[in-house]
């Protein structure tokens, strides 16, 4: 009994588990009727199936199958139509097909298997049903015999109804949402396809054709010595951008250094243009499916020869410094680029009393400084207490010169005494002070403790020359380390005495927060005779290629920064990457660069912020350097550089890896910049080892997750929480109001060209920090909003413990 029940349950489970297969309809079965159903003519219908594509369209084939069996007692004589599939489209169009078993007789119990195909030739409402025609015998009481009538099978017998109204596209119009109307014709909604139909003509083409919808426009930037052109344009969709340009008379098209950046706005600078020169240009952008080029246009650069803001300073009895500003650098500078016009600046000066003469006896000094701001000191050609006239002449190498206006100044009376060559060399407990005078003098020097100064008589030590000398040198001992002192000097000649102002110095000290050479696990500050701090930490997590320079504890709750030397630098003139061994061939130099950055920038972060940061911020960092003579970084392989192979395997604890590159000067200029991959740890950056401000700017990204605040083709985002950039004015105002700051200082990130009133760069992001801000210019300070984020990172760095 039990076995029977068990068997039943198994069978039932088997049946249930397979029932979905039994009941399932194949995907291609558009209609099916299993039957049986018997017509009045004693024909039994079974297995009526219409097969075809899921969504049939014109050209598709429909397969119709069914079986008819004679279940009557008499034979059935089919006509010339026989057995067929009856078809109606749009209710009235007859498309019967598949005629079989024509003029044949179906005896009782015999079957006819119908199987035929029809091709869809019209989008409409379709009705398909099994049908037949036979000669039906009817008894005629008049004729006393059977008469035969053509008789069709039942109308719409288990008919299959198909609405064949699929979406399609024709002649640039997309027909969609089709349905059958009252007459059985397909009715559609339509849309005009902007870019025609797709290949299958089933829908509009989704080709995203790229178009230039604004520009390209050009602004000539004449603020600098060399003209540069800013070319900008907007696209209808995000795409890449590149500018092609060539000089008038040249057939060679040049292009801007391109980088792939999908954006609807593009702005490219063309540098190193010649002054007074016409250029042709066009732009090219590529979207996901195609590219677009603008038509040619032209621009002409301006002449930069100009002298302005002339002033006289540092006037003494026999010297004067003449300063002026130009759009160009001076002579030596302008030679480094073949595209520039060489320009020399010369100051001509003459006593005013002779300036009216036809040929004044001008003295001249040629300017050699390499800057926008020029200055020369007139020395050896001036007398005390006299009026002089001067002008500045700027000459291009092609002989074109421009003279400034005439200016005058008056030299001072002789001062007593003139001091030069002041040199102060403090150590931990002593200081060496030396200087020179033009006159032979008797000198007394008074040394004061800055903290306990109470008046001129509170000097700590005083010393003096025993004779009248012009070179003076004094050595003071017994000073305290790390203490600030000042001194004044009293100079005397037999006739009179005069005292100088205050000079300052600070003695060196230990505990500078740096593990210098020879200071293994001990912080001695500068050079120390004996260890001056106890051993606190051992870098058990350091690979042999990783050396700590500032170690404050386990990496779990420290910001671990590892510096790597770059084997490359950048040749600005020839626009190429170059191999440099400045760091990789000189470990001592690289380590010094690292220590300088750590000591003078990172550990002085409290002097680079506008608001307080944690007082123990120095102990929240660990700094290291990586050194492997066979495996260096490459700062110019990619934007943020390429780390040594297997770096992350060697230093997995590293939060921020920084590749430092050496400068590559060519004719007094270099390029490189910085780049960060990641806003906040874990990240990597590259920066110039010789420029702390730029490196700190990059670490603003890489360590503290700060966003750029200048306007350019960089990446912007609202870096919550504690943002320094917001994606709307409202968000900025809400945030700063919450901090108690003035929401009126929220401003859009943009750049106004000084020389032209139009705005050259605008981003849909807002900032609040006062300028100058490190994330805006790699100068100034981290503003309050940035400091909020810096403090947030300091306080949350132990991420795995949260």
């Amino acid at each position, binding site marked *: 009994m039990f076995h029977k029940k068990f068997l039943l349950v198994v069978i039932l489970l088997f049946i249930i588990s397979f029932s979905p297969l039994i009941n399932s309809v194949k995907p291609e079965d558009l209609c099916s009727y299993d039957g049986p159903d018997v017509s009045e003519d004693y024909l039994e219908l079974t297995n009526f199936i219409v097969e075809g594509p899921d969504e049939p369209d014109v050209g598709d084939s429909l397969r119709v199958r069914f079986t008819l069996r004679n279940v009557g007692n008499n034979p059935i004589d089919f006509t010339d139509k026989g057995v067929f599939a009856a078809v109606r489209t749009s209710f009235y169009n007859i498309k019967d097909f598949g005629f079989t078993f024509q003029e044949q007789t179906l005896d009782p119990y015999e079957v006819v298997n119908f199987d035929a195909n029809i091709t869809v030739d019209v989008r409409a409402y379709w009705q398909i049903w099994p049908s037949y025609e036979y000669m039906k015998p009817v008894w005629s009481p008049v004729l006393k015999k059977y008469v035969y009538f053509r008789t069709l099978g039942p109308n719409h017998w288990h008919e299959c109804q198909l609405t064949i109204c699929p979406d399609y596209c024709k002649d640039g119009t997309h027909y969609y949402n089709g349905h059958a109307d009252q007459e059985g014709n397909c009715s559609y909604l339509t849309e005009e396809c902007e870019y025609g139909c797709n290949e299958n003509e089933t829908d509009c083409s989704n080709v995203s054709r790229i178009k230039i919808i604004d520009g390209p426009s050009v602004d000539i930037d004449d603020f600098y010595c060399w003209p540069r052109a800013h070319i900008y344009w907007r696209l209808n969709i995000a795409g890449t951008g590149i500018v092609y340009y060539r000089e008038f008379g040249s057939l060679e098209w040049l292009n801007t250094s391109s980088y792939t950046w999908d954006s609807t706005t593009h702005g490219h600078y063309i540098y190193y243009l010649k002054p007074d020169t016409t250029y042709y240009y066009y732009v090219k952008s590529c979207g996901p499916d195609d590219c677009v080029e603008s038509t040619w246009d032209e621009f002409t650069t301006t002449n930069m020869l100009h002298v302005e803001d002339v002033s006289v300073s540092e006037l003494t009895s026999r010297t004067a410094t003449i300063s002026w500003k130009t759009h160009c650098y001076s002579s030596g500078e302008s030679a480094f680029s073949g595209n520039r016009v060489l320009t020399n600046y010369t100051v001509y000066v003459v006593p005013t009393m002779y300036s009216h003469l036809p040929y004044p006896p001008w003295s001249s000094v040629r300017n050699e400084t390499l800057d926008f701001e020029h200055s020369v000191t007139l020395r050896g050609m001036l007398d005390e207490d006299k009026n002089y006239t001067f002008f500045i002449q700027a000459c291009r190498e092609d002989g074109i010169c421009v003279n400034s206006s005439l200016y005058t100044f008056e030299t001072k009376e002789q001062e007593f005494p003139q001091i030069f060559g002041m040199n102060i060399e403090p150590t931990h407990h002593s200081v060496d002070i030396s200087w020179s005078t033009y006159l032979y003098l008797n000198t007394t020097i008074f040394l004061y403790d800055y903290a306990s100064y109470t008046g001129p008589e509170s000097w700590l030590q005083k010393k003096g020359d025993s004779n009248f000398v012009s070179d003076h040198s004094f050595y003071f001992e017994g000073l305290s380390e790390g203490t600030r002192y000042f001194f004044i000097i009293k100079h005397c000649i037999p006739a009179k005495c005069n005292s100088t102002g205050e000079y300052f110095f600070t003695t060196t000290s230990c505990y500078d927060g740096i593990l210098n050479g020879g200071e293994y696990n001990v912080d001695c500050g500068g050079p120390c005779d004996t260890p001056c701090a106890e051993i606190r930490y051992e870098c058990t997590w350091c690979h042999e290629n990783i050396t700590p320079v500032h170690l404050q504890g386990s990496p779990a709750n420290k910001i671990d920064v590892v510096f790597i030397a770059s084997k490359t630098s950048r040749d600005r003139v020839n626009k190429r990457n170059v191999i440099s061994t400045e760091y990789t061939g000189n470990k001592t130099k690289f380590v010094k660069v690292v220590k300088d950055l750590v000591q003078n920038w990172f550990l002085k972060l409290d002097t680079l912020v506008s608001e307080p940061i944690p007082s123990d911020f120095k102990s929240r960092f660990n700094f290291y350097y990586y050194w492997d003579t066979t495996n260096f970084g490459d700062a110019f392989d990619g*934007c943020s550089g390429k780390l040594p192979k297997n770096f992350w395997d060697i230093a*997995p604890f590293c939060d921020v890896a920084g590749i430092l590159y050496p*400068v590559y000067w060519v004719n007094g200029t270099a390029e490189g910049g*910085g780049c960060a*991959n990641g806003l906040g740890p874990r990240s990597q950056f590259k920066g110039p080892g010789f420029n702390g401000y730029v490196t700190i700017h990059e670490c603003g990204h890489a360590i503290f997750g700060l966003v750029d605040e200048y306007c350019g083709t*960089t990446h912007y985002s609202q870096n919550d929480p504690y943002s320094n950039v917001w994606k709307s004015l409202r968000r900025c105002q809400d945030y700063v109001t919450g901090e108690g700051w003035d929401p009126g200082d929220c401003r859009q990130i943009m750049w106004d060209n000084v020389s032209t009133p139009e705005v050259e760069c605008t981003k849909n992001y807002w900032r609040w920090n006062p300028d100058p801000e490190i994330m805006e210019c790699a100068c100034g300070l981290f503003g309050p909003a940035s400091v909020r984020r810096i403090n947030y990172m300091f306080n949350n760095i132990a991420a795995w413990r949260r």
Partner: protein
Amino acid sequence: MKRKTMIVFLVSIILLISSPMLISAKSKDTSKIIIVNLNIKNDNVTLLDKNINFSHPPNIGLQPNFFIVKLIATDKKIIKEFGIWDPRLSIGDEIIYYENGTMEFLGGIASYIDDVNFTVTIPFYKNIEMLNLYENETGEELISVYLRDIVLDFCEQNPNDPDCVCKEETPILYILFIIFIVLILITLYVIKIRKR
């Protein structure tokens, strides 16, 4: 005799209770990390390799969430969830330097490079099963990395590692064992007294 028995009894109890503490005392830095090296190309993330090392993990989880990393335990609970930066995107600054110390900011670069290798390094979790990476905006799962195999391999090769010892089960068994021993000792003690 009675005193001797009592001393043996007490010493046994002390030894039984203190021995696990002695065993579990750590004598060195046993911090471990799981390193998962990945590649992203055409928005497809693929696994390059995965391994376990003795070291400390970086402090991550403070970046804008381009991608989300979820660490899934064997009981399917989330151990940790944190965001990471899109490794394809770099933010650069174009600068020209001059020998007199001045410099000129020329503008920014947002560099987007496809086909990039990147690494996700996490602390060693004995109960970790998967590391899942998601696209933050869409929530689309980019990759799911099975980590249970390397954890088991590591513990098989380092059975005495503190993170591989069954810390949760040992105390319960140990307490039962102690109770059992104590009961036997008490029983023996009572029998001895009665015999007297």
